[in-house]
């Protein structure tokens, strides 16, 4: 009785963040299973398979081997001394997920889900992609396991991420352009869901972010949580302490939850997500679901969404295709409400400035998505003392964005 009363009144300080989601896939009011009846049983099968496999020693050993020898983990933590000096505040450190095979954190998740698919006996992989990083990471693991792969991608995104489209084709995947709705990531996700509902018997859907119906937000988080586990150990090893703050970009939020998760119970570490503010939140042309959206239901879960007063999901804008999404993972929605993490908007201009600053001071071309986290890190560092440490998740490399940046600057390549 006493325990119940205590739980009912639990403040953010009392929450054990490692114990979520609950059995129903809930993070507080968020998450859940908002899908058509046809998918309920396939999702139950996936949940059971995953819960069994994550305790399975063989599975864990195979995943660890792949992460080490194929992905190239662990990724280093790098002290950006020159950048820190220029900014003149706290020390900026990067978790170098851009150095992973295929160039982003996305591979952590696809390697894991592909192994689940293989053990479930599925022979066909489908995926949705925005920037193309998750599509590439899915095509990569599918071809390595000899599985067919179909990637759904909004027609608008195909246009702005041509290099990744071609990479997927080189890896043997079929890239299907999605021309419904706003022709971006959200519509690609709708189309992948439609494929899954139609081909559910032999198909495994690798969702690329911590959204979708349960168990996806949990499973995708678990596979990305290695980023934070490594980072926490590396911080203690290299600096003898945890960082004062961590920043990561948030579209769906997979790299952010990946690096945040191991630190959730370390209340002294500030966690800040950088959402895409596009042209500025006040212009309405942005993709900042947490900063400017409201609770709703989209893509199988309850979370913050960007929609109008009729409940219609509205078009979002960001220079980075990977952040151009009107929802966000339900765990982030919950972390926002509990106050454990905070979320701020970074505009296209701020992200671009950070991209250039990082390129010139450290010789690193960051993905436009990750450049939002870099911008947030720089902002934060300015107001903090030199002995403070800010860890920025450099979630992906920027090669794929070179054309976008050149076009923005009026340069034809």
């Amino acid at each position, binding site marked *: 009785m006493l325990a119940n009363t205590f739980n009912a009144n639990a403040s953010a300080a009392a929450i054990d963040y490692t114990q979520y989601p609950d059995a*129903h896939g809930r993070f507080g009011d968020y998450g859940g299973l908002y*899908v*058509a009846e046809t998918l309920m049983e396939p999702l139950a099968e996936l949940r059971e398979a995953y819960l069994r496999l994550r305790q399975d020693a063989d599975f864990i050993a195979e995943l660890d081997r792949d992460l080490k020898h194929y992905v190239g983990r662990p990724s280093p933590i790098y002290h950006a001394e020159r950048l820190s000096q220029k900014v003149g505040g706290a020390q900026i450190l990067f978790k170098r997920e851009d150095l992973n095979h295929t160039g982003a954190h996305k591979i952590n998740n696809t390697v894991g889900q592909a192994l689940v698919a293989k053990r479930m006996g599925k022979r066909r992989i489908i995926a949705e992609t925005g920037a193309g990083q998750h599509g590439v990471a899915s095509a990569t693991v599918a071809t390595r396991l000899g599985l067919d792969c179909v990637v759904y991608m909004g027609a608008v995104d195909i246009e702005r991420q041509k290099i990744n489209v071609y990479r997927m084709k080189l890896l043997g995947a079929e890239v299907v352009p999605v021309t419904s709705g706003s022709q971006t990531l959200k519509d690609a996700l*709708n189309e992948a869901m439609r494929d899954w509902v*139609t081909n559910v018997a032999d198909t495994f859907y690798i969702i690329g972010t911590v959204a979708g119906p349960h168990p996806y937000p949990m499973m995708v988080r678990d596979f990305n949580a290695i980023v934070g586990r490594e980072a926490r150990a590396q911080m203690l090893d290299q600096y003898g302490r945890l960082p004062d703050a961590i920043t990561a970009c948030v579209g769906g939020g997979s790299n952010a939850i990946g690096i945040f998760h191991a630190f959730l119970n370390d209340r002294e570490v500030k966690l800040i997500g950088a959402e895409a503010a596009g042209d500025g939140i006040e212009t309405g042309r942005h993709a900042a679901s947490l900063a400017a959206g409201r*609770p709703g239901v*989209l893509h199988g879960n309850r979370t913050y969404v960007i929609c109008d007063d009729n*409940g219609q999901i509205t078009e979002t804008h960001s220079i980075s295709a990977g952040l151009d999404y009107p929802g966000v993972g339900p765990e982030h929605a919950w972390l926002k409400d509990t106050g454990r993490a905070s979320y701020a908007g970074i505009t296209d201009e701020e992200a671009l400035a950070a991209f250039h600053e990082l390129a010139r001071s450290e010789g690193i071309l960051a993905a436009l998505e990750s450049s939002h986290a870099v911008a947030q890190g720089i902002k934060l560092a300015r107001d903090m003392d030199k002995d403070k440490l800010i860890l920025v998740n450099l979630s992906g490399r920027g090669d794929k964005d070179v054309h976008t940046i050149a076009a923005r600057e009026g340069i034809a390549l």
Partner: protein
Amino acid sequence: MNRIDRRFAELKSAGRTGLIPFITAGDPSPDSVVPLMHALVDAGADLIELGVPFSDPMADGPVIQHASERALAKGVGLAQILAWVGEFRSKDANTPIVLMGYLNPIEIHGYAKFAAEAVAAGVDGVLLVDCPLEESETIRPLADAGLHRIFLAAPTTVDARLAALTAQASGFLYYVSFAGVTGANRLDLTPVHARVAAIKRLAPELPIAVGFGVRDAQSAVAIAEFADAVVIGSALVEHLVNSAPAAAVTDSARGFLAPIRQALDTRSTRHAA
């Protein structure tokens, strides 16, 4: 008594198969919705499913996706749809209306507010595609207000869930004839028949409507052999959008539905004889 229950009781005592057309509210044009609903009733509809357009219709095929996009482009929203239902209700007190769609428009409108307004307008039930039984607590205010929550069952629904679904069902159970999106052409009646029979054994009194892939009189009659009602959506929506002048839409709806009604009635008369 809810109009849906009354209608299925009437159908049962008359030995007739229910005919349930689906249209997307606001398509092919906002002006045509109410006349279209009356025309469908004239042509033999027993219940009308009115689709509430949503920007991200995950369970729908291209026909209904495009109908939703057209309706949304014309600014159709929940308040207007409820007003149309009210207008329809002023001339038709008996034909049940089920709103079919996705959660977010209702979530944003507010569940209790929507429930009160829907009942006042004359809505009888809701079928929310992305609100399975497990999440149905979300829409409890709708049931509390007297709206039937129509649940779906699918080929992938396992027996244990089927028992839970039939125990919680109200109005009727909507059986999805194949794993796929609306409007696809994958109908194979043998497994559908077996499954509907299994549901009938679990819940003999619960009416079962079968939808997805029903395109014409022939497929409707085949389903009438074992189901209490047939739902026709994409084929009708596609037919209507091709009937260009707005004035022709009601004639087009009658022309589409009446032969199906006639075929169903011929079949039930033959059965009675």
